[in-house]
C-alpha cells in the first residue's frame, strides 16, 4: 500500500465517521448531565430522513441541517421531559422512541427513496489544504467535517475547562451536591439533553447529505446503537469518544479494503459488513470487564494507566433528582 492510499483512507475515515462523531458527542453531553437518551438510533434515522427531505424539496442545505437538528432536539426533549417531569424510566422511553422514530422515518420517507438530491459541497481550506499529508487528511474536506472536529474540541473545552462545565459534571455525578451549591439541576439536565439531541440530529443529516447520499429503508444502518456503545467505550469523555468513533470508522473501511484482497475472495461480503460491529463488542468487553480490571490492578502503574483509559459512568446516570 503506498502512502497516498493510506492518506486517502484516513481522510475518508475522518469524513465518513463524522455523523457518528456528532451522535457520540451529543449523547456524551446528555449522559454527562445524567440522562441517557437511548432513542439515538431512531433519532438519527428520522433526522437523516427529514434532513434529506428538506434538502430535496427546498434545495437549501442550511434549512436541511436546521430541520434535522430540530428533530433531534424534539425527540431529546421528550426523553428529558418524561424523565425529569414524569419520572418515567429513561431506558423504556428511549426504547419506545427508537421504534417510533424508525417507523416514522420509513412512513414519511417513502416519497424520497432512491431519489438523487443535493449533497454537502466539498470545501478545501485554502492554503491549509496544501500541507502534505496533514492537509490532505484534515483540510481537504467539507464544512460538516470541519464542524465535527470543532464540536469535539468545543465540548471537551466546555466540560473540562469552564465553570458551567464543572457544574455539568457535578450534576451528572452527584446532583444533590450540585443542588447544594446552587445549581438548578433539572433545568440544566433538560438543556444539555436537548442540546445533545440537536447534535445527534445534525449527525443524522450529515449521514444522508454526504456520507451515504439520499434516503432508503433503514438508511443509517444502526449507527445509533454503535454511538451508544462508543460513548461507553470512550468513558464518557468527548475526545476518547471521538477516537472510538474513528476506530469504528477505520474498522469499517478496513473491512471494505479487505474485500478487495484476492485471498479473501471466497469470504461472503456480509462477514465484512458485520465484522466492525463484532469487533466493537469485543472492544466494549475489554473496557468494561471486571476480570480485566483485576488483571490490570496488579501493579500501581498498570492500574493508573488502565483507570485513565477506562472512565466510569457519571455517578447519577439514569436517576431522577428530587429536592427533599
Amino acid at each position: 500500500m503506498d502512502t497516498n492510499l493510506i492518506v486517502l483512507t484516513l481522510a475518508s475515515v475522518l469524513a465518513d465517521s463524522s455523523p457518528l462523531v456528532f451522535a457520540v458527542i451529543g449523547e456524551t453531553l446528555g449522559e454527562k448531565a445524567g440522562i441517557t437518551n437511548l432513542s439515538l438510533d431512531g433519532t438519527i434515522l428520522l433526522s437523516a430522513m427529514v434532513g434529506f427531505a428538506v434538502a430535496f424539496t427546498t434545495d437549501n442545505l442550511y434549512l436541511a441541517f436546521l430541520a434535522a437538528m430540530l428533530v433531534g432536539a424534539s425527540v431529546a426533549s421528550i426523553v428529558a421531559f418524561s424523565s425529569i417531569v414524569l419520572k418515567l424510566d429513561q431506558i423504556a422511553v428511549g426504547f419506545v422512541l427508537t421504534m417510533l422514530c424508525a417507523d416514522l422515518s420509513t412512513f414519511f420517507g417513502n416519497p424520497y427513496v432512491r431519489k438523487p438530491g443535493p449533497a454537502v459541497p466539498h470545501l478545501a481550506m485554502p492554503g491549509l489544504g496544501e500541507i502534505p499529508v496533514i492537509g490532505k487528511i484534515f483540510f481537504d474536506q467539507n464544512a460538516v467535517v470541519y464542524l465535527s472536529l470543532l464540536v469535539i474540541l468545543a465540548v471537551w473545552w466546555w466540560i473540562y475547562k469552564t465553570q458551567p462545565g464543572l457544574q455539568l459534571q457535578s450534576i451528572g455525578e452527584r446532583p444533590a451536591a450540585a443542588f447544594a451549591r446552587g445549581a438548578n439541576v433539572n433545568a440544566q439536565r433538560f438543556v444539555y439533553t436537548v442540546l445533545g439531541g440537536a447534535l445527534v440530529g445534525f449527525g443524522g443529516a450529515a449521514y444522508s447529505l454526504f456520507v451515504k447520499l439520499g434516503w432508503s429503508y433503514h438508511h443509517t444502518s444502526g449507527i445509533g446503537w454503535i454511538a451508544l456503545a462508543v460513548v461507553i467505550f470512550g468513558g464518557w469523555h468527548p475526545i476518547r469518544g471521538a477516537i472510538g468513533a474513528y476506530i469504528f470508522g477505520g474498522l469499517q473501511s478496513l473491512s471494505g479494503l479487505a474485500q478487495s484482497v484476492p485471498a479473501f475472495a471466497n469470504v461472503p461480503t456480509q462477514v465484512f459488513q458485520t465484522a466492525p460491529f463484532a469487533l466493537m463488542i469485543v472492544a466494549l468487553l475489554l473496557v468494561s470487564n471486571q476480570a480485566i480490571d483485576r488483571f490490570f490492578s496488579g501493579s500501581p502503574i498498570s492500574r493508573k494507566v488502565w483507570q485513565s483509559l477506562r472512565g466510569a459512568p457519571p455517578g447519577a446516570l439514569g436517576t431522577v433528582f428530587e429536592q427533599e
Partner: protein
Amino acid sequence: MRLEFQHIHKHFGAVHANNDISFTIEAGTIHGLLGENGAGKSTLMKILSGFIRRDAGEIRLDGHAVEFKNPAEALHLGVGMLHQDPLDVPPLSILDNFLLGRQTRLIQDRSAARADLQTLSQRFGFDLDPDAPVASLTVGERQQLEIVRLLSRGARVLIFDEPTTGISLPQKVKLFETLRLLAQQGMTIIFVTHKLADAEDLCEQVTVLRLGRVVGQVTRPFTSAQLVQLMFGQTFATRERAAVAPGEPVLELRDLCVADYRLRVPHITLTARAGEIIGLAGIEGSGQRLLLRACAGLDAPVAGEIRIAGAKMNRQPYRAFLARGVGYLPAGRLEEGLVAGLNLTEHFILARRTREWLVNWNAAQNHARARIAEFNIRGDPASRVESLSGGNQQRALLALLPLDLKLMLLEHPTRGLDIESTLWVWQQLLERRQRGAAILFSSADLDEILEYSDRILVFSGGRVAQALEGRETSAQQLGELIGGKGL
C-alpha cells in the same frame, strides 16, 4: 451569628419529625444537638440550611427572620451544613470541589482558587492536596474540605451532622480542635450527635431532642447522667450478663487471610467456642465484613484454614456452611438480607428449606403470623418488607434465621435502630447464646462492643490484633487500637 428557632414544625407523612421546636443559639459558641436516631436532628438542620422547607415556624438570624428556598440561599446568608455523608463530588479533584458553586467567570481563575484553598487549609493545619480526587480521601479529610469550602463562601454558622461517625480517633481530635478554633474566631457551631461523650467533650450548651420535640437544654457544667436522663427519659445501668461457660469450639481460624481488590488482612487466628460472643471492632471497611463473609462461606479466603465444628470448610459451598448451622446477617437489610417487593409471608416461605413444589398459603400465613407475634414485628403477613421501619426489618431478619444455629455472623446488628429495638435485638442474641450459639458481630459503636463482647478482635490498617478480653478492655484502649495506636 445569633440563631433562633421559633415553633418549627415538620411532617413527613404521618411522622411529626419536628414538633414545635424553639430554642436559641448564641454567636461564637459550640452548641450540641443531642438525640437518638430518628429524634429529628437532621431534619431540623436541613430546614436551617435550606435543604427542606418547614411546615410552620420561624428562623431568625441576628434577630432577622429569614426564609431560604435552597441551600445556596442559606449559604449566601452565612449558614452552611456538613452532612453526615459529606455532600461533595467524589470523582472530581479537591480544587474542582472547592470551585463548585462559586461565582466565577466562564473560565475560572484556578490559581487564585488554589491559593485561597491553601491559605485556608494552612490556617487550620489541614493537609489537602488540591489535585487529589476526593474519592481518594478519608471521611475526615472530606470534612476538612467542606469546612474550608464553606468558610471561603462566607459561612458564619457551621452545622456538623454526626461528624464523628466514620472518622479515626486522631481525626476526631483534630476535628474538635478545629471546631474550638472556629468558635474562637466567632463562628457559631452546631454539633449534631447521638454520642453523649462527644457532646460532653465539646459543647458549651446542649439541646436534647426526643421524638421531634425539645426535651431539655443544659449549659456547662453538666454531667453525662443529666444528658442520659434527657435523652432516654431514664438511666440505663449496664446490666450484668449471665455468665455462660464456653463449650466446644465452633469456629476455628488458622492463619486465615481474607482480601478483596483493595484490602488484604492476613494472619487471623481465632477460636470461638459455643456460647461466646466476639466483637469485631474497627473503622468501617477494615476487613470485618470480609472476615464475616469468609466464615459464612460467601467469599473464599485467600489463605489459611476455616474449621466449623471441627470440620475443615475451605472450598466448601455455601450450602455446606448452612448445613453446619452457620447464619449470616448482612448490614444491608434491604439490599442483601431481604427481598424488597416481597411480603413477610413470602420471606418465611423462602427461608424454609423444603422440597415441596406447591406452597400451602394458609399454613404459611399462620406460620408468618406466629413469627411476627413472637418477634414483635410491627407489620402483618402481607406487609412488604420495604414498608417496615429499620428496627422491624431487623426483627424480621432475625425471625428468618433458623433457631438451631451454631454460629451467628452479624454485621452491624443494631445499626440505625432506636434504643428499644437495640435492646430487644440483644436480648434475642443473648438467648441464642444461652442455647449454645457462638456469635461474631461487627459494630461501629464501641460501647456496644464493650458491653456485649467476651472477646474483641480489633481491625486496623490491614491488621488484626490479638483478641482482647472484653471485661479487661477500656473504651480508651479500644479507641486507640482502632485509631492505629499500639497495634
